[in-house]
């Protein structure tokens, strides 16, 4: 009606991929260049993950999921950036180990630190950036044209030159001693070792960490109307417009289940004055009108590696049942101010019948839909 789309809205995007998974996936050789695997790997810092699946299926796979999947563990610490470069911490976790760290703060307005694969990224406002004496590059902040610029400093701490006593390294120490001195809250995850209470002598324990184990939370969604989940053949025959519409409506439905909206319940009788939301293609469903779903939720600092394990485990354990589908929804932490990644959703459809229309045996891989989202504006949790 009004056709005045604001700037933030224009930058929002959703990359959708419809793909057939290989019939067999070797966990040691993940096809990491293709979605959904590449999508999972591209989201290093995750704060929430949720799996939605039929309740009946969940009850079947629950035991195997619980034994095969370790709980994500992380620590919350309060420290100044200089503590990263302290000998023990630096050598154990950055030079020889592998950790994920992320500081509090909002991209676009605060000083934000992330550490991944030995690379420390620091996002700073112009004034403080100039005072640090570090070299960085301009960084989009989403501010108005004449608002202060922001800068991104990237330091690969695993370079051979990054050693105590070397000139470049001493410059970082100077900046952390004289300018970026403020203590802040960080989340810490050790990709190599478990963060158990028994390892009392690890360097992280010197900064009084709060060790957290992520427990999963089960949520029942009773009597949910499920849209038709089309087979490969049907999806291929759809026109481009129909396919986009179907994929869009399906991702919306997954989100509606996640938020536990009464609009997806079979018992909803809302007045059309209040809502005209309808489950996509609900009139085409011939199976039972509504069925029980289950969601499993994790909230904490979660690595992409753990998400991959979760995904592979789900693929493996839901294989046997031929009516099984699941959706995985993941929200990224430390989103950048402009066109930042919000997260992604993956939906794996039931195994296809082995015999396709021509009567030949198909490859038997399952269809997946993958949505990568970026650019939304979330100001409050």
């Amino acid at each position, binding site marked *: *009606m*009004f*056709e*005045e*789309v*604001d700037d933030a*809205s224009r930058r*929002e995007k*959703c990359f*959708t*991929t*419809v*793909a*057939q998974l290989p019939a067999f996936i070797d966990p040691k050789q993940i096809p990491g260049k293709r*979605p959904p695997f590449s999508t999972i790997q591209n989201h290093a810092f995750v*704060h*929430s993950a949720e799996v939605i699946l039929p309740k009946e299926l969940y009850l079947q796979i629950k035991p195997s999921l619980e034994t095969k999947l370790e709980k994500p563990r992380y620590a*919350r610490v309060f420290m100044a950036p200089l503590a990263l470069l302290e000998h023990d911490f630096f050598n154990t976790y950055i030079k020889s180990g592998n950790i994920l760290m992320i500081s*509090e703060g909002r991209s676009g307005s605060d000083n934000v630190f992330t550490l991944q694969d030995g690379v420390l990224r620091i996002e700073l406002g112009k004034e403080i950036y100039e005072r640090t004496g570090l070299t960085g590059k301009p960084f989009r902040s989403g501010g108005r044209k004449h608002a202060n610029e922001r800068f991104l400093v990237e330091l690969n701490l695993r370079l051979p030159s990054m050693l105590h006593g070397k000139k470049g390294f001493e410059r970082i120490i100077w900046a952390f001693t004289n300018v970026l001195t403020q203590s802040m*809250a*960080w989340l810490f995850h050790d990709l190599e070792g478990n963060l158990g209470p028994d390892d009392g002598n690890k360097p992280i324990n010197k900064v009084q960490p709060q060790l957290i184990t992520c427990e999963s939370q089960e949520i029942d969604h009773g009597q949910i109307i499920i849209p038709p989940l089309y087979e490969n053949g049907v999806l*291929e025959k759809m026109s*481009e417009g129909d*396919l*986009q519409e179907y994929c*869009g409506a399906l*991702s*919306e439905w*997954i*989100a509606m289940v*996640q*938020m536990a909206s*009464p*609009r997806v319940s079979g018992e909803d009788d*809302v007045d059309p*004055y*209040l*809502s*005209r*939301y309808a489950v996509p293609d609900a009139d085409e469903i011939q199976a039972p009108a509504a069925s029980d779903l289950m969601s499993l939720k994790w*909230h*904490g600092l979660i690595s992409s590696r753990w998400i991959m394990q979760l995904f592979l485990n789900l693929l493996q354990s839901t294989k046997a049942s031929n009516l099984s589908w699941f959706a995985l929804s993941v*929200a990224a*932490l*430390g*989103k950048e101010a402009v066109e930042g990644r*919000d997260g992604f*959703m993956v939906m794996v459809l039931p195994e296809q019948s082995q015999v396709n229309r*021509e009567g*030949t045996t198909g*490859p038997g891989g399952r269809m997946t839909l993958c*949505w990568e*989202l970026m*650019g*939304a*504006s*979330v*100001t*409050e*949790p």
Partner: protein
Amino acid sequence: MTDTHGDMEIEANIPLTEAAKRKAPEPKPKTLHFTSRNPPWTYLKLKIIPQPGNAPQPLDPLSARTYLSSALSQFLGLTGTAIPIDILKIENGSPSTTKYDVVWIRVPREDASAVVSAVSSWIGGGNNSAGSADVAWRVCAKGNFLGALIAGSGADLFVP
């Protein structure tokens, strides 16, 4: 200003003609990619802010709709009330802990900025038909893809 329609990109590598020519070998797994920039809806998470000294009733769908209509008609007149709004969910925090009332709505994407302006500039008076106390709206989240908004920003993890 700029054309907001029709810049969906389609990139598909399906061997369409090949399948007709020969049956075997089976074509490789097919992959379709596309980018959506202009989906039909914008989603908003709105929180109701009671004015100091007032303790309004917990929010229900009908009063949420009434507040929204009031904001839209104040800002845009009759045109405003014609904007279709779908109420997706009402969340009420328990009164014992932190009390909050949130409504998730969906509006046509083209109308979203008008809705945001209308709700941000509105303060409901005590004189409207729902008998509301003085309240205002705050926009907590806005996006064209609902999946990006549900889990929030994760900022709560940093708070001990």
